[in-house]
């Protein structure tokens, strides 16, 4: 649905990374982990298009002025261009236009499996709302978080507060182990697990190959340039596993995803 929202808070977590909370209609309370929103940061034509963000958290809060619980949505974002720079300048009370919830979310899997979350950089964002849902079901959850340096590792304490066991790897070793998060992950993979991953494409490709090698089911959440978020512009497509020029099989990240089973996609 399309709705007007108000910024509740917009906090810088580490250099260039922000966490923003916005008001939302009650219906958003049933959003699934892995779904996303499209946000129009300004009414002007520059930037023109909306920007997509995974749902970092959805919940309710008590306002000072009344007793009924109000719904909020949160996003975690990195300032990378003009749109996100303008977003980072918004304050409590500013209005924005949202489309949400969009896309297909994570399927939570079977009871009793160990749930393995793998996040790279800002790809950690949709995994927090997922972790909350999994923990609420009584599942054992482990998080593997990777980034270039310690500034890229976000909200680890929030995950730990949920009871999630966390593992961190950074390229420069400023936090956790030095190296790729996939190297740490591989040491802990085994039967009876299910993987949920979000991050840059090379990381997702590595995770998906690793999952296949260990026979562990794996869902990935993709990020892509998109104009509309509703399956019309066809800007955000990814080739499906059997895609070829003769038998085209493009999937829309916005509508068919952003969450896919890793075997559905063609990994170059």
């Amino acid at each position: 649905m399309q709705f007007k929202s108000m910024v509740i808070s917009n906090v810088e977590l580490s250099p260039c990374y922000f966490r923003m909370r916005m008001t939302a209609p009650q219906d958003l309370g049933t959003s699934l982990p892995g779904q996303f929103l499209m946000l129009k940061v300004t009414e002007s034509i520059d930037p023109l298009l909306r920007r997509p963000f995974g749902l970092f958290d959805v919940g309710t809060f008590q306002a000072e002025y009344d007793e009924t619980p109000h719904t909020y949505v949160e996003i975690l974002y990195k300032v990378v261009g003009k749109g996100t720079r303008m977003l980072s300048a918004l304050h409590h009370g500013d209005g924005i236009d949202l489309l949400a919830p969009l896309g297909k979310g994570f399927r939570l899997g079977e009871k009793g499996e160990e749930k393995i979350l793998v996040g790279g950089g800002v790809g950690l964002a949709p995994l927090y709302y997922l972790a909350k849902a999994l923990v609420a079901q009584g599942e054992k959850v482990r998080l593997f978080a990777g980034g270039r340096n310690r500034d890229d590792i976000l909200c680890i304490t929030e995950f730990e507060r949920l009871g999630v066991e966390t593992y961190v790897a950074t390229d420069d070793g400023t936090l956790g182990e030095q190296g790729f998060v996939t190297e740490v992950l591989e040491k802990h993979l085994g039967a009876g697990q299910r993987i949920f991953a979000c991050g840059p494409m090379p990381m997702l490709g590595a995770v998906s190959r690793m999952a296949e090698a260990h026979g562990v089911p794996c869902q990935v959440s993709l990020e892509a340039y998109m104009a509309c978020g509703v399956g019309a512009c066809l800007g955000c497509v990814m080739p499906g596993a059997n895609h070829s020029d003769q038998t085209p099989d493009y999937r829309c990240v916005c509508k068919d995803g952003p969450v896919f089973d890793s075997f559905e996609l063609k990994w170059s």
Partner: protein
Amino acid sequence: MHKPDMSVEVAGIKMRNPVMTASGTFGYGAEFADYLDLESIGAMITKGLSLKPKAGNPTPRIVETPGGMLNAIGLQNVGIDAFIAEKLPYLKNVQTPVVVNLYGNTLEEYGEVASRLDGLPGVAGIEVNISCPNVKQGGIVFGTDPKAAQEVVRLVRKSTTKPMIVKLSPNVTDVVSMAIACAEAGADALSLINTLTGMAIDLDRRRPILANVTGGLSGPAIKPVALRMVWQVAKNVKLPIIGIGGIMNGRDALEFMLAGATAIQVGTASFLDPGAAQRIAREMEQYLTENGIESVSSLIGALNA
């Protein structure tokens, strides 16, 4: 005051208001049903169809530019058979005219697609996209050569009894001569403009941003070019014109009507506001009401110039 009369007619297609959805920006209609009332707009134009399904280009396919966006989707579509089997049944139940946009990779393919649609219930008319390369003749774009465009339009004319709109490319030296050529070849109406060819570069990586290198520019950035072309064509060709190019609100739409358009198409605006087409129709009506104008058709070509 009573409500203004918003109805218009283009090439025999009767519409409740002048707002149509531009091809390639509105999917096959159903994608937008959650965001607007499909029966509140004048007509829907579906994503460009070819004879066979088309994969389209590799990604990145889109990039935002100041006041606009470049796209190089590569005409990805489900193909005519899947459209008729899977998309048209839904559209038939919507009480809004459906115009099917089509293109061919060869001259013959244009004729084949048009004849497949001829006589199909639920298809109010066709819009011919001539801005595609002619595969057989070394990739010369049909829509930038008056003779090639005329051949396409003549063939499609022979292949269908449906109202035929020809969508003109702005990437030409003289849009009026293209318009005249298409009119002579039997077009019932002209829609303009298609996207302007453009390019975006990533300085740091020293690479083009789009995988296809070049793409089509759309959005508010192209509105002045579109207005100028609509105005020029309207002065020189008797056919009804559908104005397209960066229309974001009701005022933009009415400007196109003053320049000579009978109807307009909403394109890129639907990407950032999926309810844009309905909103724009409402804003047009509001403007008429506020200014005591009784019928929207009285504004067609009413520019003081």
